[in-house]
């Protein structure tokens, strides 16, 4: 690789995730970035001859932090984007813990040795957890309560706490954490898209919390903004508007199956243990209580506000074009 390092150098972990891939694509087109390192365990789809270079990094390896540190030093990485997180709960929860919690530790160890100018972490609003006491709009200052028995969420909470501690100990590094609302769109795959893809969906009888989504293009744009800007701290990246869960299902044409809580919990437990469905019993709390975040801070300090409403996002997930037949997705962030 020719080291024509004029411009910024960005390293991206989790390059094969949706957000990672979108970020690589956007950085590739931007002349301000001299070099992009795509770190993952398998190569992402890269345009040939570009400035992006794939380097195989497995964050579950016990001594990967040293390797990362040499990498950061050798390439003089200026911005580190940490996005190696699972978008979907897995039964291999030990491995997930190694990747998310311990993997973040490795990343932070490396960044403590060789301080990059900027560290951006990708998180979700699920870290707030769905609790009966949640206010309608959770701000970034809200406590990260996670979920009582969801390792999927709690690993992310632990990773975020580590990053917060790192930010406190290394004031010279600009640390930004992006908490994305559930991302929906035609290409992204995560817990929510898989859940909403099924023709039938579980509804907790008599409960209908408000839900919030962010369109995949909006999310990718927010990540790009976060890499560009100098803003530090946590930011909720959310879409425009909220809708009740059953209205989301109605818009999608899914058949709601209302169930009393007790039955639903037992059933999901059985289905999860037998690996028939991919959403664990703890996910039911997100169908019971609010977990909606407030995006005002990202609008103020990051200059990001979602362009697509929740209804448009849901219809785009379904493949229904806007009324005028135009494709408003791409033009949205010009």
């Amino acid at each position, binding site marked *: 690789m020719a080291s024509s390092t004029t411009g910024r150098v960005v390293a991206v972990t989790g390059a094969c995730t949706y957000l990672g891939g979108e970020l690589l694509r956007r950085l590739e087109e931007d002349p301000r970035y001299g070099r992009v390192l795509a770190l993952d365990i398998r190569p992402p789809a890269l345009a040939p001859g570009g400035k992006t270079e794939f380097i195989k990094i497995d964050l579950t390896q016990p001594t990967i932090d040293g390797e990362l540190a040499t990498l950061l030093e050798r390439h003089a990485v200026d911005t580190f984007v940490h996005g190696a997180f699972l978008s979907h709960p897995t039964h291999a929860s030990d491995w997930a813990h190694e990747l998310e919690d311990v993997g973040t530790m490795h990343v932070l160890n490396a960044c403590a040795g060789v301080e990059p100018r900027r560290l951006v972490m990708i998180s979700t609003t699920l870290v707030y957890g769905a609790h009966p006491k949640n206010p309608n709009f959770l701000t970034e200052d809200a406590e990260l309560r996670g979920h009582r028995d969801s390792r999927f969420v709690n690993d992310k909470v632990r990773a975020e706490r580590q990053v917060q501690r790192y930010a406190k100990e290394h004031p010279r590094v600009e640390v930004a954490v992006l908490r994305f609302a559930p991302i929906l769109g035609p290409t992204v795959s995560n817990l929510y898209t898989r859940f909403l*893809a099924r023709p039938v969906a579980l509804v907790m009888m008599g409960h209908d919390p408000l839900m919030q989504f962010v369109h995949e293009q909006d999310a990718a744009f927010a990540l790009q903004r976060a890499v560009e800007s100098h803003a530090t701290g946590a930011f909720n990246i959310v879409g425009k*508007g909220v809708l009740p869960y059953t209205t989301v299902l109605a818009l999608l044409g899914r058949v709601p199956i209302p169930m009393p809580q007790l039955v639903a919990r037992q059933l999901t437990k059985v289905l999860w243990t037998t690996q028939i469905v991919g959403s664990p019993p703890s996910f039911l709390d997100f169908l019971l209580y609010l977990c909606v975040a407030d995006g005002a801070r990202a609008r103020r300090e990051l200059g990001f506000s979602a362009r697509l409403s929740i*209804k448009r996002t849901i219809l785009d997930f379904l493949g229904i074009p806007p009324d005028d037949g135009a494709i408003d997705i791409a033009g949205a962030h010009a």
Partner: protein
Amino acid sequence: MTDDSDPPDSGDDDWYGDSDPRVPDASAWPDRDLGFLGDDVYLGDHVQIAEPVTPDDGAAEMRELERRLEQHRTPVFPIDLRRRLPLEGVWRRWRALAMWGRSDVVDDFGRDPRATARWEWLFEFLYSRWFRVQATGLEHIPDKGGALLVANHAGSLPYDSAMVMHAVRRDHPARRDVRPLVEDTVFHLPFLGLLMNRIGGVRADPENAERLLMKDELVAVFPEGEKGMAKLWKDRYRLQRFGRGGFVKLALRTSAPIIPVAVVGAEEAAPMLGKVTWFAKNIGIPWIPVTPTFPWLGPAGLLPLPSKWYVAFGPPIDLGKAHGPAAAEDRLLVNKLADQIRTQIQDMIEQLLGRRRSPVLSAYLG
């Protein structure tokens, strides 16, 4: 029919193929006419792409098109799955049916305009026929801007908040919407909490209230909270402690005026003779009320008795102007102000009760 090069407008409505621009059909959409659905990028090479939205942004547009065409070649969830979906027509009709009675836009706190309109008749019936509500002092509610309505609370079901809401929407010249703050026990009740939320109720939480007042909404609070609802018949119209004065702090911080509201009649609508806490926790409610009708008549016993109601709105109290926002930290002052307002509402209630000729019978005859 199975020929892939079949032109899209073959006129057969039930035919859905890869080259049919109507595959993601929204024409069954209930609230608008989409007969003219434009072209869709997913649909092969014969498609004419519509004019870009922003003309000077061809590059981004093309990039998005390329991305989507690329995905079209590799099977990806929703489109390709939907194409294989059997009973497409049934699915479309189901979608239209499922959206019946609900709006596809709700406000930030979950108020659904269509659901509100759907229940309007019930509240109108309760208001003018069943409780024969007499509302006075509506002129004290501002036409614009936020205000905090502070009211007393009674009855095992929150009919009083519904009636305060309906009084302002019906008889106030500006027809303003009141957002009642609903305590947790009611808000998380199955079905009932959900209904309260759809017609405008918001979970009682200082952050929610502050946000609503900042948006210049009318917020109704019942500072007695659960204690007000738990009052027995013998304690009727005796105001309980006004929480921890959270509503005063709120008014000081947002400098919204407080409008004291006295509701008379709610106690007689559901006179709670006693309450049973045994087994109640198991079904997720704090107590089981015992009224002259409730458990005896089954669910029909939950219907309120037809008492005669009076609702009085008092003149606004501007705490923000008198004390300034910093006073919200002064605990002694907050508690004192909360108690002052409590006494004022208690006086308003006594006044309304004085209008009745006899204590029990006129509560129902009016």
